[in-house]
């Protein structure tokens, strides 16, 4: 893929001292990484922080990138690890119940003004329910769901990024969908 080749060239240029090369990598991948982080963490603020930390970690460990995997896969792995670490920290601190409140407060102002309050409330409730359901999945299932639903990667791309067999990716996604269906039933979807 042209993009993949360009990414590797960008990494080589960044290693050779070109200050703009890594910036180009960031511009290409920040939206995808943000989408991944948002899907994993469920909060905009945390997703921004995780995205920044991902690229910071990638910049610091640029010399450790040996070109055996694609740059996208490498970035994805860093991003997933960052998200899992943040979630563990948040769990220890007990930061759970306010997330819904903050998310609702933020989303209220983001919805168009012509939407009725009842519809707004219904949308918010559904969003919160889906976010909770995805957030409650085990990390290995969650990252597959997020990469498929948020980043819209193909099964092949996910398989390469996570270094898993294709059938494993598909079976994990199937299991994740089944668990999501059961969780959403509880919320009265």
């Amino acid at each position, binding site marked *: 893929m042209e993009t993949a080749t360009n990414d590797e060239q960008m990494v080589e240029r960044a290693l050779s001292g070109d200050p703009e090369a890594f*910036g180009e990598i960031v511009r290409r991948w*920040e939206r995808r990484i943000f989408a991944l982080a*948002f899907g994993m963490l469920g909060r905009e603020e945390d997703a921004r922080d995780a995205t*920044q930390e991902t690229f*910071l970690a990638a910049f610091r460990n640029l010399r450790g990138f040996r070109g055996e995997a694609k740059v996208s896969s490498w970035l994805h792995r860093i991003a997933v690890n960052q998200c899992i670490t943040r979630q563990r920290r948040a769990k220890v601190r007990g930061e759970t119940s306010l997330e819904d409140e903050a998310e609702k407060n933020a989303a209220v102002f983001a919805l168009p003004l012509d939407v009725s309050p009842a519809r707004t409330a219904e949308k918010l409730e*559904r969003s919160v329910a889906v*976010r909770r359901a995805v957030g409650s999945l085990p990390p290995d299932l969650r990252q597959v769901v997020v990469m498929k639903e948020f980043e819209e990667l*193909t099964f092949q791309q996910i398989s390469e990024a996570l270094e898993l067999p294709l059938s494993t990716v598909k079976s994990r996604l*199937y299991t994740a969908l089944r668990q999501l269906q*059961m969780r959403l039933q509880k919320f009265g979807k």
Partner: protein
Amino acid sequence: MPNINERPVCHRAEDLVTYLYGEASEVEARDFTEHLQQCDACRSEFGVYQQVHDSILLWRNEALGTAFSPAAVSIESTIDSTQFVQHERKLTALAALREFFSVSPLWLRAATGFAALLLCVLGALALSRSWNKPVQLANKATEPKYSQQDFDQALQKRLDEMARLNTEPTPPKANEASTKSKPTDNGNRTQLAVNRVQPKTPRPRGLNRQEREQLASDLRLVPRDDEELPLGLSDEPNQ
């Protein structure tokens, strides 16, 4: 919505997922479509998972549509400097209270609730005491303050004084009384003092009202303007 908790009978779970996300080839898609018409389990699962997929997409579009703006995620400036996107989160008092209770452990919540309850009870007790005090004071003003012994002693003292005043014009009687009273106890002296007084003026046994009032004032049972009540009363109604 059908509840799919049991393991699917059909073994084509991977094909279902491939078909659901539109990654099946033309041949595979045709084949699975025919399979769906025959397999109830797959047909049921497909419908359910399609709904889940749509819900996640909806959430994604709503969230990413408002959340992501490239200008806010300033990675390059972060690499150059340590500046991050700043956001402020102002909490109302109620939200801050909710945050406190949400992050605090169960024992802390219970302790806080108990402390609040205890404060309320103590406050109520203090209020009820402050309301009841004037009534109690009014009642106590008319009740005797001294014990019986104190009262007898005070009475005896007063009667002695009165007896001394009365015995001056009639010394013999007083002498007789005094000689008689000396060896006896307080009770006899009281009686003798009363007897001494009796012949002078025709009075009923005991003290008249005026004498009682005077005695009471002497014994300081009724507060004067510049004095406090003794024994047990810390506040006067006037203060």
